[in-house]
């Protein structure tokens, strides 16, 4: 967690104060700039934290520590529903929010099953547009150290973990390793199917349903429920969108030809 903060500190927001007055009054100011030390939840200055669960399972007591951050969905709602293209998925599977474009509407937080992105008011593009009437800052979350990966390095959290419990690689490889680990433990996998599959996989000796009950959940503290793929219907409708205009043209052409024939036959009857 501290390695994540150190490495990503240059990306953290430095808001200008006082913040612009926002209209209407219901628009919330979200300012974490004076609470940068908060470490027990996700914030714009804390993109990773350790969630702890003390549980009893099959007669044994377990203390499970879970590094929580963005799971980098395979079909990310934050990127697909962002109206500005600020949130996006990279070719290597990383989902990141571009702080130069984001207006801080927090839509990504609302559509994320885990409500991961966190807002900082008083920073970003909205200040140059209509700061009182549209936008509210920038959304921040784990970007999987995309810049380190581009430079051939590994994410800071993996490098710093003293127990070496995290690894990174192509999803198929990691998935195979997760299944092998789960067989050996024996254990359970989280992330293979959740929200259509994520590019973060957890393996635990305790079922995630039990962990989900035990962990502290709330704003900035994501749960471990089994979320379905909320964008599955849209993917299916994309196919229908491809077919619809051709079906329409065929129907229109048939209608026109039938009308022409009818008109011709009626014209013939008149003669």
């Amino acid at each position: 967690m501290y390695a994540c903060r150190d490495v990503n500190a240059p990306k953290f927001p430095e808001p200008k104060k006082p913040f612009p007055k926002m209209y209407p009054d219901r628009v919330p100011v979200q300012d974490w700039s004076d609470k940068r030390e908060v470490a027990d939840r996700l914030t714009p200055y804390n993109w990773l934290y350790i969630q702890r669960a003390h549980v009893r399972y099959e007669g044994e007591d377990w203390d499970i520590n879970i590094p929580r951050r963005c799971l980098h969905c395979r079909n990310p709602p934050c990127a697909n529903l962002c109206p500005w293209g600020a949130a996006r998925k990279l070719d290597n599977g990383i989902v990141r929010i571009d702080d130069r474009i984001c207006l801080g509407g927090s839509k990504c937080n609302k559509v994320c099953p885990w409500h991961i992105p966190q807002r900082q008011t008083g920073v970003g593009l909205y200040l140059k547009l209509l700061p009182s009437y549209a936008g509210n800052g920038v959304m921040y979350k784990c970007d999987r150290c995309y810049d380190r990966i581009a430079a051939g390095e590994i994410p800071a959290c993996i490098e710093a973990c003293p127990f070496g419990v995290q690894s990174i690689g192509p999803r198929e490889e990691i998935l195979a390793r997760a299944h092998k680990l789960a067989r050996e433990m024996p254990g359970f996998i989280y992330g293979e199917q959740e929200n259509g599959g994520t590019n973060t996989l957890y393996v635990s000796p305790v079922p995630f349903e039990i962990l989900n009950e035990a962990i502290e959940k709330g704003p900035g503290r994501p749960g471990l429920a089994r979320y379905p793929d909320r964008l599955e219907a849209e993917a299916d409708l994309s196919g229908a969108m491809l077919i619809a205009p051709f079906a329409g043209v065929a129907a229109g052409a048939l209608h026109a030809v039938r009308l022409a024939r009818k008109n011709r036959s009626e014209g013939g009857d008149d003669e």
Partner: protein
Amino acid sequence: MNKRALPLWLGVFFKILVFVLAASGLAQMPIFKRYYIADIPGLGWLAQFYVTHLVHYVAAVLFLALVGYFLGRYVFEWRLSGRLRAGARVRVFLFAVIIGTGAMRVAKNLPDVHFSPTTTMLLDWIHLFAVIVLGLTALGLRLAGRGGYFIRR
């Protein structure tokens, strides 16, 4: 559009579809809750992003089918007996821009398709801007008494 050639209900259905597409499209921006519109009874769905997204997609499928139908009839029937008004040509062009940018955004939303943020932003801005211009153009033509699409020769 030649009103005699098109049933009234089809024209009304087209207008309703365009309205639903515009409302659900604008709702992709988080503005309806901020500005109390979603607080109006019956309009709460405008602040539910998954609902507005699905509504936009379903309405788009119906809209594309209807546009295809109009195109089929235009090519095989209407263009033989008349022509599009000048204002209609502008609207057809704007619809084409909206459909083109919308189609690219739908492609981008597929799980394994990614565009650069600049491309995505441009698509979204052109899509939105064309809708606003289309709305203003349609309003202006209607006020000028030139609302129809088609005139017979």
